[in-house]
């Protein structure tokens, strides 16, 4: 039937009209109804204002001049169906093409309002209360986590750990040797930049020799520790969070819990231990590379023997500076690993949640490390290192 009318009026625009007949209201539809040709129409709200409506009246649909149609036609008919529902008209769609009738039957009489989000009705006070409870809950969870990991370490020292050595070695490899290249590049460049900028300034005071102290102290005390921590937060912290949240989505964490295998001992301990073991070592290595970077630049820019450079460096940089940096690297590692594991465990179960968890772990890791460093600076000042 549709084809026949399409042949009659192949290119006319969609048209509709409502007339009042003795049998009831009559809606006449004609023309081509194609959504993609831009000829979509809506039934105006006042479409039935000029005719007599009321319960018991019937709305007939006539489609004698209907051409091709698609979704735009169904949209219009759905509008009619909803309007008929509102005005208590009985809708008679027998004249509609059979496929249109079937599609229309799928659509409800009235548009369903979108379901509200669950928490959208909470007032500001309830939200503040909720946030406060969340903070306390989070503090509690993190404390439990630290306690469990501490317990795991003690078990480990007693040789009764549930941790698999293989997991620890894999994590150590990922957190240590495979990070060497990026740690080298970054620290070398930082040392070189420090020496370059330092030399330019110190030259004005004929104090070029102090570039060894500048590079040595800056990298041993602050920069190598911070840069290494930032690299590890981005590299390893993000990876831990992504891995744990993927396990969450895959029900692996549930499987561990139901089996009764301790999460702390089994997943968290190898991750945290490996970072805590490797990062101080990476820091020491990074410091040496940074000093080497400074050395390379200084050799090209100043008149000093290579041996003289190294001697002045170790003369100027106290062992305490290295110990200070080493201790800091240790705490940074603990913080990064714990934060990443916590973020991963807290993550949701979808693919997007894995991305969010990884991002969050990196951001918390980097900001936290810098904040921790500030605390260390204050403490060091108080102690007098």
């Amino acid at each position: 039937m549709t084809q026949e009318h399409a042949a009659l009026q192949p290119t006319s625009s969609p048209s509709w009209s409502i007339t009042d007949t003795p049998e009831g209201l009559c809606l006449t539809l004609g023309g081509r109804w194609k959504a993609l040709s831009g000829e979509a129409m809506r039934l105006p709200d006042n479409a039935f204002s000029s005719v007599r409506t009321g319960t018991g009246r019937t709305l007939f649909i006539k489609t004698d001049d209907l051409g091709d149609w698609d979704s735009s036609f169904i949209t219009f008919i759905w509008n009619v169906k909803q309007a008929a529902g509102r005005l208590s008209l009985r809708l008679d769609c027998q004249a509609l093409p059979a496929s249109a009738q079937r599609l229309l039957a799928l659509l409800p009489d009235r548009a369903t309002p979108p379901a509200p989000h669950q928490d959208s009705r909470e007032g500001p006070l309830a939200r503040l209360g909720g946030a406060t409870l969340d903070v306390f809950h989070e503090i509690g969870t993190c404390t439990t986590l630290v306690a469990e990991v501490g317990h795991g370490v003690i078990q480990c020292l007693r040789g009764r750990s549930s941790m698999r050595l293989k997991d620890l070695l894999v994590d150590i490899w990922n957190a240590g040797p495979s990070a060497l290249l990026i740690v080298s590049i970054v620290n070398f460049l930082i040392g070189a930049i420090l020496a370059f900028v330092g030399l330019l300034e110190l030259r004005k005071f004929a104090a070029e020799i102090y570039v060894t102290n500048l590079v040595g102290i800056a990298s041993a005390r602050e920069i190598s520790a911070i840069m290494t921590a930032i690299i590890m937060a981005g590299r390893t912290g993000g990876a831990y969070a992504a891995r744990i949240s993927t396990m969450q989505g895959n029900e692996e964490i549930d499987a561990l819990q139901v089996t009764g295998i301790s999460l702390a001992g089994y997943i968290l301990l190898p991750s945290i231990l490996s970072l805590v073991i490797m990062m101080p070592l990476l820091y020491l290595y990074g410091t040496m590379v940074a000093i080497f970077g400074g050395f390379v630049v200084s050799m090209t820019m100043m008149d000093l023997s290579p041996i003289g450079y190294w001697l002045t460096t170790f003369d100027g940089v106290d062992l305490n500076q290295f110990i200070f940096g080493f201790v800091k690297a240790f705490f940074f590692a603990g913080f990064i690993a714990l934060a990443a594991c916590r973020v991963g465990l807290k993550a949701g179960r979808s693919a997007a949640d894995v991305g969010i968890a990884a991002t969050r772990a990196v951001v918390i890791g980097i900001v936290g490390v810098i904040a921790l460093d500030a605390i260390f600076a204050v403490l060091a000042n108080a102690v007098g290192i």
Partner: protein
Amino acid sequence: MMPDRDTLIAVRDLQLSFGPKIIQKNVSFDLKRGSIFAVMGGSGCGKSTLLRSMIGLLRPTAGRIMIGGDDYWGQDEARRTAINRRYGVLFQSGALWSSMTVGENVALPLEMFTDLKPDAIEQLVRLKLGLVGMEHAIDLFPFEISGGMRKRAGLARAIALEPDILFFDEPSAGLDPITSARLDDLILTLRDGLGATIVIVSHELPSLFTIADDGIFLDAVTHQPIAHGSPRDLHDSCTLPEVTAFMHRSASIPSQTEQKAEQHV
């Protein structure tokens, strides 16, 4: 009502919620020793949530779950973990630990909770994998095997510690009909062989009819169970429109169908 001696799990007036949203309430049923119990219902009605509360992953907001006479959620965590030792759970996705080979997955619970020597463990791992037809995959990682194989490997891990209660979360979801029928056979064989009691969450009718001998039907609209009995009996004699629609695979429940028929006129 006191559960009798044949009853292994008794659930009484259980209520499950996420925050203020109630998922299911007034859930009560008895699970006979050695039976296969089906938790049925449409998608999103709270079947998996009920399962999670029975295996200790979600604390119910009211009611009790009695496992062999102990109030499961009334115990402290250590005691619950001890009860969990009697459980074997097959998760929807298999939930194999992805950093380990299939063999190591099955071996881990044995290493953790028994004093067996490594070669005894290896023997057991081979046996369990052999039972599910996965012995060849012992050294493969979970990402190297197909979805159906992952489920079977998950099943081998679930039966590693000789559990007397097995939980299956949508065992046939995402499997083709043949693989799923094989899995059903396997579940029946294991029930008879191990003498385990099985709780199965599913909406796959063919598999429910084949294996389950008792069950409960959860309704997503009223958030409570509306029918009890084996899937077969519910199919043959239950007159509730929601249940008949589910059991006879019609696209809509009768009251809506009538409405639509009227609109066609």
